[in-house]
């Protein structure tokens, strides 16, 4: 393989791996912040034990998100030097702002939260996890403003042999990026909610710590239901943006070949890229695709055949990932809805079948968010910056294949090891349940209050 394919594979592997941890951090930080706030408000130690139990799982996950994130920042320069040189004037800014405005906040206050139980008052301690949660979400905003610019480049001019920023406001208020941001962080909330519901289900099935896990489950069910519905809503907004600015991606998402107005949506499709058609099409819903993409039944949707072959994304993987993601999203909405209703009616402990399903549903939300990224990034191909720069033009000219082979092997081994350790620890501490002995924290926080 050449440097380009190897670098693409490496970026895909490291980004996907990083994104195993990020969504849980996004959502669980908020849930833990809610829990600790309940503790501060009510003084009920159940909420403190809850905070500590979920907080410990949060931290195991958090550190991996942090350390795998450094890789992402370094890789732009290491493997994509020509890209970095060409767009750095505009792309570097949001990355630098992300570090300044978000990473510092997140990393400084996580230290205070972990080690500060005995050093600061209850309120300041709860405030520190809120700051972590806000900072995490802020960092998602800035990195997605950067990614949003790659999806829909705005506010720049081509001069001095590169893309230069001309309008910072356009970069910051890029609608494409904001829609992606909302969609992404909400999917993180859903993932975290399913994580909490799944682990709670494990303990409820064993009749262990029922009040604590019932309460966790109900909190997560409400959070997850709200999140999942909004994920679907922002997904719809996202489709409108894609239709407007990335017509080739839209056509690939639906494996749509012939340009036509009042385009139908076909429920069952199997793409046949070689012959530029679908091998199978079953159950058409008239006008539905035009409606979804442009919110207008008669709108024209451009088909893949109207794009030269070298300006189309790979159809089959983009199409399949998108379908599977949407299907999973609908399933997750349903599961969260059932959980919410059962929680309100107080029926959770009496639904072992449902709890077992929830325990095994944890991977589903992980698969869904990974597919989402696959759709976004693979659907943008062959562009690294949509319509402006090809991925093949962005790679580092000084690299030799052997270097990237070595780094790819390194990443695979190191990340494989980290994944194994992560899963081992998450399972171990999820099963162990909350600690009983909180005397140390309670004593000293009482001393602080007094």
């Amino acid at each position, binding site marked *: 393989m050449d440097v380009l394919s190897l670098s693409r594979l490496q970026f895909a592997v490291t980004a996907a791996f990083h994104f195993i941890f990020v969504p849980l951090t996004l959502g669980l930080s908020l849930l833990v912040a809610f829990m600790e706030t309940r503790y501060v408000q009510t003084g009920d130690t159940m909420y403190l034990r809850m905070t500590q139990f979920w907080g410990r799982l949060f*931290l*195991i996950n958090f*550190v*991996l998100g*942090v*350390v795998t994130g*450094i*890789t992402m*920042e*370094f890789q*732009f*320069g*290491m*493997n994509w*030097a020509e890209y*970095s*040189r060409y767009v*750095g004037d*505009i792309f*570097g*800014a949001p*990355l*630098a*702002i*992300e*570090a*300044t*405005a978000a*990473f*510092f*906040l997140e*990393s*400084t*206050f*996580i*230290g*205070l939260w972990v*080690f*500060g*139980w005995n050093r*600061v008052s209850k309120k300041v301690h709860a405030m520190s996890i809120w700051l972590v949660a806000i900072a995490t979400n802020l960092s998602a905003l800035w990195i997605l403003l950067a990614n949003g610019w790659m999806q829909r480049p705005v506010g720049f001019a081509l001069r001095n042999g*590169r893309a*230069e*920023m*001309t309008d*910072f406001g356009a970069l910051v208020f890029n609608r494409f990026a904001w829609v992606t941001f909302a969609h992404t962080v909400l999917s993180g909330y859903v993932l975290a909610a399913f994580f909490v519901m799944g682990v709670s289900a494990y303990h409820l099935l064993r009749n262990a710590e029922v009040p604590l896990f019932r309460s966790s489950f109900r909190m997560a069910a409400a959070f997850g239901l709200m999140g999942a519905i909004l994920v679907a809503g922002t997904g719809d907004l996202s489709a409108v943006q894609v239709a407007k600015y990335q017509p080739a991606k839209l056509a690939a998402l639906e494996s749509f070949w012939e340009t036509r107005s009042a385009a139908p949506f076909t429920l069952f499709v199997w793409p046949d890229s070689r012959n530029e058609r679908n091998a199978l099409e079953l159950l058409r819903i008239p006008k539905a695709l035009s409606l979804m993409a442009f919110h207008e039944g008669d709108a024209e949707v451009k088909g893949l055949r109207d794009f030269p072959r070298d300006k189309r994304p790979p159809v089959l993987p983009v199409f399949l990932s998108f379908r599977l993601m949407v299907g999973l999203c609908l399933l997750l909405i349903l599961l969260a809805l059932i959980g919410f209703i059962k929680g309100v009616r107080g029926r959770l402990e009496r639904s072992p079948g449902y709890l077992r399903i929830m325990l095994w549903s944890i991977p589903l939300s992980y698969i869904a968010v990974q597919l989402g990224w696959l759709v976004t990034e693979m659907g943008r191909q062959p562009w690294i910056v949509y319509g402006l720069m090809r991925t093949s033009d962005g790679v*580092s*000219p*000084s*690299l030799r294949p052997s*270097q990237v082979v*070595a*780094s790819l092997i390194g990443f695979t081994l190191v990340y494989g090891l980290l994944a194994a*350790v992560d899963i081992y*620890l998450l399972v*171990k501490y999820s099963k162990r349940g909350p600690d009983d002995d909180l*005397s*140390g*924290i309670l*004593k000293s926080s009482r001393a602080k209050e007094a």
Partner: protein
Amino acid sequence: MALQTVWFALWGLLWAVYFMLDGFDFGAGILYPFLGRSEEDKSAIRRAIGPVWDGNEVWLITAGGATFAAFPSAYALMFSYLYCALLVILFALIFRGVALEFRAKGTSAAWRRNWDVAFFLGSLLPAVLFGIAFGNIFRGLPFDSFGYHGTLISLLNPYALWTGVLFVLLFLVHGALWILLQTSGGLEERALRAVRSYWPFLFAAAVVFLVWTVPATTLEENYFLHPYWLIVPLLAVISLISIGIWVAQRKPRSAFFASCCTIFFVIFTGIIGLYPDLIPSRLDPASSLTVFNASSSPYTLKIMTVVALAFMPVVIGYQVWVYRVFRHKTEQREASEASPY
């Protein structure tokens, strides 16, 4: 003053502060197997840097991000030319962070031993490699308008290796002083002895480095041109001597402050010498990346300046506050009650 020059100074500042802060984390990690004789001591060393290492590491991410935003061409070339070195630094930093977080979460002896090794190497390797990287930048990299002509081996030249040794010694003394400030009992005593025994080596290494820099690099040219800048290397030497004096007088807080200053002024000795180069070329001075030919557009630099002015004071404010929260030594009793490490 041109905005490019302002950003060059900020770029230097970010690296200097990064080494000043994460430097003691690295030092503590390198000293960890030698000073941490018992489980309690090891845990105390990990707790000494536990609350702050993550916030310190963000200075590196910000230095990287600022290089990208302000000097994109330098970012692109520096990171792709130093590919393998950066890769090892990345893996090392990954293991350092994970080791700190995961070590206490297992009980078997093998688990602890392996994460201890990861913590040690994850601290030693970045210290050495950042030194080698900066030694090479000071010296110039072998590239011209046709591209890069260096190899991994050519990065391991004697001057760069010496810079690596200097970085390790700087961080060893710095880390030992931090442990001294944060712990008590036998560990505190051993940390004090470590500072005393490493300090002469650090002093010798620094003097050799300063002298060797004249033939090995072109950094001295700026100092001949503007002799008043010699105050910076002079301050580096004065700070270095002050560490020794304050340690002898058992004033660890002052000694740690002096150690911060030493690192800061050593880095700036190099940075001032580099100007206006960010990455000098050894082969063809005309190909060197300077703050002028590698910078972002004036518009971007202006935006970034506003961002830096708006956020950095706040960042520094809350980091100082959190450092103050953790300024007292951790007591053994308190540690056993509610510490995750």
